[in-house]
């Protein structure tokens, strides 16, 4: 990543979801996670947190935070990634994050292989590959409106809206 990271208008607004104290604290955390002090978080640095070694989605989340595909997370990527989880983040932002978790190859579509891989991380050995393939195929057939065999963000949004996922995702974490 270059010396200046340019921010989109949406990203500027995402940052404004935080207070100065939040930013200061995130900076402090960022630096203590950055074990080698090289100014960005490598996957191994985050997986180094004891409680996260068993968490199957850590690499997916890092990959989503890592917008420029550099293989690591800069401070701005860290703050912008976390901004999607604040109460003031929009439903659209949360859905985009969820979509990105499933879009493994980051081509803007959830392909058959994308969905299979992410599901496999979660079901482990509880389901066989044949059963998993059947579930994945069925989901694609159900949600693929244009019949191209993969899901766009709009198709994903519609699929999760129809089953009430948007509500689950937009849980206001400050209300608990």
């Amino acid at each position: 990543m270059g010396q200046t990271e340019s921010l989109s208008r949406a990203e500027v607004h995402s940052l404004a979801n935080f207070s100065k104290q939040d930013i200061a604290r995130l900076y402090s955390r960022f630096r203590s996670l950055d074990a080698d002090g090289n100014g960005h978080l490598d996957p191994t640095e985050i997986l180094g947190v004891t409680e996260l070694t068993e968490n199957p989605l850590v690499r997916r989340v890092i990959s989503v935070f890592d917008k420029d595909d550099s293989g690591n997370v800069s401070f701005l990527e860290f703050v912008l990634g976390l901004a999607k989880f604040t109460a003031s983040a929009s439903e659209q932002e949360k859905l985009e994050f969820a979509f990105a978790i499933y879009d493994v190859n980051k081509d803007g579509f959830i392909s058959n292989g994308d969905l299979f891989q992410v599901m496999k991380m979660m079901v482990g050995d509880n389901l066989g590959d044949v059963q998993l393939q059947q579930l994945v195929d069925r989901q694609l057939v159900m949600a693929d409106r244009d019949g191209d065999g993969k899901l766009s963000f709009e198709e994903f949004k519609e699929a999760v809206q129809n089953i009430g996922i948007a509500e689950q995702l937009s849980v206001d974490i400050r209300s608990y």
Partner: protein
Amino acid sequence: MPVRRPRPGPGEKPSALKDPCDDRPVKDVVPPPAHLLTADVLMDANGVPDVDVLRRHLDHEGVLAQELLLDLIKKASDLLEQEPNVLKLQDPITVVGDIHGQYFDLVKLLEVGGDPGEVQYLFLGDYVDRGSFSVEVMALLYAIKIKNPKRIRMLRGNHECRQMTSFFNFREECEYKYDLTVYHAFMDSFDMLPLSATINGKFLALHGGLSPELTSLKAINSVNRFCEPPREGLLCDLLWSDPLEPKEDEAPATKPAKKAASVPSFIPNDVRGCSYFFSFEGAAKFLQKNSLLSVIRAHEAQLEGYKMHKTNPATGNAGTVGPCSTRCYPPRSSDPIITVFSAPNYCDVYNNKGAVLKFDNSSLNILQFNCSPHPYHLPNFMDVFTWSMPFVIEKVTEMLYYVLQTPAGEEARDQEGLEAMDLPPLPTKVRAQFSNASLTAEEKSVVEFASQLAGKTRSAAASSGSRGAGSAEAEEAQTPEKQAEQADRIRKKVRTIARMARMMKTLRQENETIVQLKGICPGHKLKPGMILAGKDHLASELQRFNHAMEIDAENELRPEGGPV
């Protein structure tokens, strides 16, 4: 969710799900049709469906164009409406018991029983509910009925009504695969189903059993069947009653045998919560009076797929024939009640065989068959996004919780008054990005601050020794009250995330239990926990069958009230 699948072009067959990225991992699984099946492909010029085309489409969970499915329902319904309450049939004929949405077992059954284009079939009802493929069962049965109106006969079971399909899963399945219009069309067609049939004038076939109001076959013909079955009366009993079984604790060895004469013909059926148990004596009286040999019925799961209920000479009570290993049995005039059940491995847990009865040249053969594999569905037609979202939310919030959780001893540094730090000035290019973003002055200062820190981390690589610099003097600038307040606020935020992670964990764990069942469909009123509990130590098929019967017993009960 209504069907939103694309239609193929006119006259084109539905094509399979595409794999544009060529990354579909399990190529052995045949991809499902991505298009709807339309009338111009299925129906001939006379509006008669091609059963093979339909079956091939349904085999991979293909969906029909809604107007085509409604047309099949209407055509079958019109045929059924013309039939009398009691059908008069002659052998050769294959008699089929409960199917319960097990489409892939129905396909197998039709192979075992004979081509429906050549063989006469009598289905005893309970086509729908419990299994996940009831719509496919109905579409195929109605199509073969339309194709062979005189050769395919369908009776009504206790599940073919609004009340049961709402309580169990057929209504839900219709809504998931099509919509309520389709469901209501099916319900109206169920009202048309005949109630019983005689075979060679010697066997009475129906779904449940006898009734105190059933004195002669004429009584059945006087019933108005075109309605939702009531909770009592002849129509109810034909669909709901069961033969009375001797209880295990009343074995002759431990208790003196009751006199045959003391057994009433009918006693209230507490297993079903409606209708009656009919005793062997009740059945014998009825059969004799009407010059019949046997009652052929379905309605109850059987380990071997069938059961010959016959007189036990010692007690006068009904008894059972033990499981046999051969496939065919000659009929005996001493079998006044025969149960046939055609859903093998019922609900994916019963471990039972399916069977059909073949009447030919006045003799009876029993053909048994094992269960066939079926595509995996999550319970209640849950899709993978619904299943996985709690998992994603839990694991992501858990990750954030641990990433953000401040380790002990580090808290003081959290409170750094970083404004006081020596931060590099922002380049004007970056600053210009915020100016047109319509932010308040405070928001703008936050964004600037974050960008400055970002610049600092980038230079940190060059001077990694400067960590924590400037924190000491900044800390002094804060009052202890303010520090405490901030610390408290941050703790609350972290707790909030932790609580949400716990909530999602519960949901995720429930969903994990669901997939641990691997292919079992417990959502349809069978509790996953009960199925998993104690399953391992059940060694024999009979034990597993009895265990399944036990945990599923409450589902034999008729639900209270009308349709939901």
